[in-house]
């Protein structure tokens, strides 16, 4: 599944600060954001098929129109201290170059325009694995949203598997 990543995620009006577009979603207590151009579709699914010989953060695989798609559990991968969501009812199917994978979610917040001035420095209590994949963070409606660099996420996951 290829995703057209040539569309600019930023917008700028002369004389104003650059804005970035983010697709925001929640998984339990956490909120994440990814570039909307990387989102292929939102799938209504509640279960992935487990695959043996894989790390615990790989929840399994699903079939999307015949294509086998791995499902990542960001909660497990980032080793977050909060409780895992029990209301997961959909997956965000994302594409990074030729690779496609799905991420669990229990609520889609929507596409948000974020001004550069809203971006905050990383919190000191973030886990190492989250810090490595963070391209920024901002607050919306009182909730901290973590902007995930999907390319970096894939690189880090490969590094983790090799270390097993």
């Amino acid at each position, binding site marked *: 599944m290829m995703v057209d990543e040539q569309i600019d995620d930023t917008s700028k009006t002369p004389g104003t600060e650059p804005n970035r577009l983010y697709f925001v979603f929640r998984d339990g207590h956490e909120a994440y954001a990814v570039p909307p151009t990387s989102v292929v579709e939102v799938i209504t699914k509640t279960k992935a*098929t*487990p*695959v*043996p*010989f*894989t*790390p615990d953060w*790989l929840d*399994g*695989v*699903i*079939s999307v129109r*015949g*294509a*086998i*798609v*791995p499902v990542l559990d960001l909660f497990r991968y980032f080793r977050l201290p909060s409780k895992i969501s029990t209301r997961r009812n959909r997956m965000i199917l994302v594409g990074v170059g*030729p*690779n*496609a*994978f799905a991420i669990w979610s229990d609520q889609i917040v929507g596409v948000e325009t974020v001004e550069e001035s809203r971006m905050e420095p990383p919190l000191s209590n973030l886990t190492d694995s989250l810090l490595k994949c963070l391209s920024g963070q901002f607050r919306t409606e009182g909730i901290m949203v973590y902007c995930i660099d999907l390319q970096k996420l*894939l690189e880090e*996951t*490969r590094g983790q*598997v090799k270390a*097993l």
Partner: protein
Amino acid sequence: MAGETVEKPRKSFLILFRVGEYRLAVEAFSIQYIAGVNWTPQVGAEEEDHDRIVEMAAVLRLPPQEGKRTIVIDTPSGQRGFVVDSISNEEIILRFIEPVPPLLEGWIKPTAITGFLVEQEAVIGVVDFHRVDQAYFGRMPSVRPKGEQAR
């Protein structure tokens, strides 16, 4: 990516089986036969039977299961039996095996899953027992202590 060969689905005869929460398959041509749980390998007197029987539940890091069947493969060092929970009642089925996506291939270690089949919304991994044998047998012999009888 330009120049990259895309692996296509291929048809094969498969046997479905279960180990705990996993519903899996194995290509029929890759195994010798399926035996009961009390299978013992055809080995010489100097060989230890228990080293040739592998509990798949232990390989997959599951709690001990009530294994009922043994999938037997032939290896250069002799027969090896992998105890699983059950074999599908359908016995042998003919299906297309989808290749493992390159991204997922990098996350499977050891690379003992060689493809998937989609069966009524469920995705079933195809296990290569020879790769399981190569990856695990050297550092994880059978979980049955010496002298323990098979059920």
